[in-house]
């Protein structure tokens, strides 16, 4: 049963077997698996419920204010601050993500085993969970009809330089490249949890409450007892009615920023105060290239290819179109002539991004009035990786025939020849001068075999609170260096299976 804000006209009290907080990659999957196993599951989501027909193609602001947290204006504080995008709607960030699918690299699992004692999470053991998730979200190659010229240019550049690349697998069914993934897929082709796990959860008798922010996870004598939250009027933001859920099992899946914040506010502590630390962000560095011929990057599939040549070194590169406003922000040094530049060059521009497998980290703090403050410090190694990523992207673009590239660096805003790439490394840049963004937050409630280096066990269960679990990107002990949705979903499937086996 789905309850939208308009369906609620009084305080609600409810009992269930399992309460799940957050309906994104982790929460939707865990909810569906548990409801399918016959448990009575209540799923609580802070954002609203919107489906394909609601998504507005020509109104970015509708999308950011209805589908994104903080209207899309979230920031992770630090030097530099990092722009953060995450979903706040049914489906969570999967509703607005780019649909790329990656299994967790073996090197990451090995690290988790060696460094955190997670010996039961191996490529082999995870195989059935990956397969199940990939089948459910239709992780498949893209159709030729969906191809996009910007991705083809990336491939061409990589081929000319002899760099390895991969044709992306994406969670989609007959995607034809509307290229609106990040504002809500208007064709229904993208398989976010909104279109697969959530309907299946509801079909199995699950109850979904929307527009309700959970404020407390309740515990008594080391055991979880439920949650409380408030239904918030989507127009006025007024807290209207209270939700009280009584449940012996609670799974928190609010994403790697909100999950530790909720747990901290609820007074939950771990042995070594690791909760909220280890915020990892896959910093993303942007470079914009201008080509002689029109590319029309907004037509065709988002991120058809990724360059994997430097993956072992922690660098993954791709191209993706974003709305003109975001594109304008990626070219910060054009001053007030941005409109003139875009009028002339919009159809010729390609935006590339380098994803850094980060080794530095940040912390999530909670402030007064329900404020959540994530902070992050880019370390020297990752800073150098950002510069290297920008240089490599520039090289690929020139190899593909770009006439110039726009860099977000004071002192070198435009570069017209590959011969000038070494000059990037001579700039006396400081980390605080970079313009970074992230769409992958992870790591703030890490798993591990021991309480001294982790908060959760390998099934996402708290070491020290009975019945309390986490199933979202928070559980990663380290950065994974690839797009994370499949890893989150596979681990959530495993957590749900563990809970179901113990409950029945």
């Amino acid at each position, binding site marked *: 049963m789905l309850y939208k804000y308009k369906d609620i006209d009084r305080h609600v009290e409810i009992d269930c077997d399992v309460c799940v907080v957050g309906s994104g990659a982790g929460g939707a999957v865990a909810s569906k698996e548990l409801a399918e196993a016959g448990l009575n599951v209540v799923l609580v989501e802070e954002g609203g419920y919107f489906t394909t027909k609601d998504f507005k193609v020509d109104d970015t602001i509708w999308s950011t204010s209805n589908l994104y947290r*903080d209207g899309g204006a979230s920031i992770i504080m630090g030097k530099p601050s990092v722009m953060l995008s995450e979903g706040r709607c049914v489906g969570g960030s999967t509703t607005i993500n780019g649909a790329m699918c990656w299994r967790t690299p073996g090197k990451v699992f090995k690290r988790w085993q060696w460094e955190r004692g997670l010996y039961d999470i191996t490529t082999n053991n995870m195989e059935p969970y990956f397969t199940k998730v990939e089948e459910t979200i239709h992780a498949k190659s893209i159709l030729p009809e969906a191809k996009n010229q910007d991705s083809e240019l990336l491939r061409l550049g990589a081929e000319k330089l002899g760099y390895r690349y991969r044709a992306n697998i994406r969670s989609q069914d*007959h995607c034809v490249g509307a290229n609106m993934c990040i504002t809500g897929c208007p064709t229904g082709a993208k398989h976010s949890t909104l279109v697969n796990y959530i309907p299946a959860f509801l079909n199995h008798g699950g109850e979904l409450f929307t527009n309700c922010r959970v404020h407390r996870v309740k515990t008594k004598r080391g055991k979880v007892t439920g949650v409380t939250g408030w239904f918030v009027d989507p127009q006025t933001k007024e807290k209207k009615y209270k939700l009280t859920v009584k449940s012996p099992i609670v799974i928190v899946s609010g994403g790697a920023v909100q999950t530790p914040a909720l747990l901290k506010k609820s007074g939950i502590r771990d042995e070594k105060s690791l909760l909220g630390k280890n915020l990892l962000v896959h910093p993303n560095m942007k470079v914009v290239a201008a080509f002689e011929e029109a590319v029309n990057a*907004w037509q065709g599939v988002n991120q058809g290819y990724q360059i994997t040549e430097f993956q072992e070194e922690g660098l993954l590169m791709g191209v993706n179109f974003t709305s003109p406003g975001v594109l304008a922000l990626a070219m910060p040094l054009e001053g007030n002539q941005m409109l003139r530049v875009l*009028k002339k060059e919009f159809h010729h521009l390609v935006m590339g991004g380098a994803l850094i497998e980060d080794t530095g980290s940040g912390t999530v703090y909670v402030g007064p009035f*329900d404020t959540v403050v994530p902070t992050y410090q880019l370390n020297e190694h990752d800073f150098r990786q950002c510069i290297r990523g920008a240089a490599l992207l520039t090289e690929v673009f020139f190899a593909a025939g770009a006439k110039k590239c726009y860099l977000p660096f004071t002192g070198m805003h435009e570069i017209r020849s590959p011969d000038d790439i070494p000059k990037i490394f001579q700039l006396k840049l400081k980390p605080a001068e970079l313009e970074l963004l992230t769409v992958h937050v992870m790591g703030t409630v890490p798993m591990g075999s021991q309480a001294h280096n982790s908060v959760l066990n390998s099934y996402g269960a708290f070491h020290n609170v009975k019945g309390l679990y986490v199933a979202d990107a928070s559980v990663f002990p380290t950065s994974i260096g690839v797009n994370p949705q499949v890893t989150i979903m596979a681990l959530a499937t495993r957590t749900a299976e563990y809970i179901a086996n113990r409950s029945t």
Partner: protein
Amino acid sequence: MSAKPYQIPKRAAQIILAISRALVFEPEDLNIPNRDEALLQRCRSILQELPVMYRMGFVMGIYLFDLCAFLFGCGFKRFISLSYEKQCQYLDKCLTNKMFTVRNIMSGMRGLIMICYFSMPEVSAYIGYNPNKHVKERLALREKLLKGSGRKA
């Protein structure tokens, strides 16, 4: 009495509009009916979604920006009273300020206003971005492909 949706304070709204003009030079051949209202409506939609503390911080930042023009060498005038050229110069100085905190606050303001500005349909049309038509074509293509594989769209 029931609560009302968030409104941007009047003075802050004036400053936001002045910043938007200094941020994006508007050519004469671009005509946006009700430009100011449309832009403020978009800013309001985003600000409403921010936690109260951040929203207050944003508005305070706007006031501070306006006032600092008065305090720091713009001939004792607030930002909104400066000539257009002076406004552009002052804004540029703030955006490239040596102090990280100033730059950081400014880039937040700039980000929000730019995203709102470039999301206006007239601006999209001006630069030749027409997602509506494109999506209609893609929807038709998808329907055709699905029919071809014996399925309903």
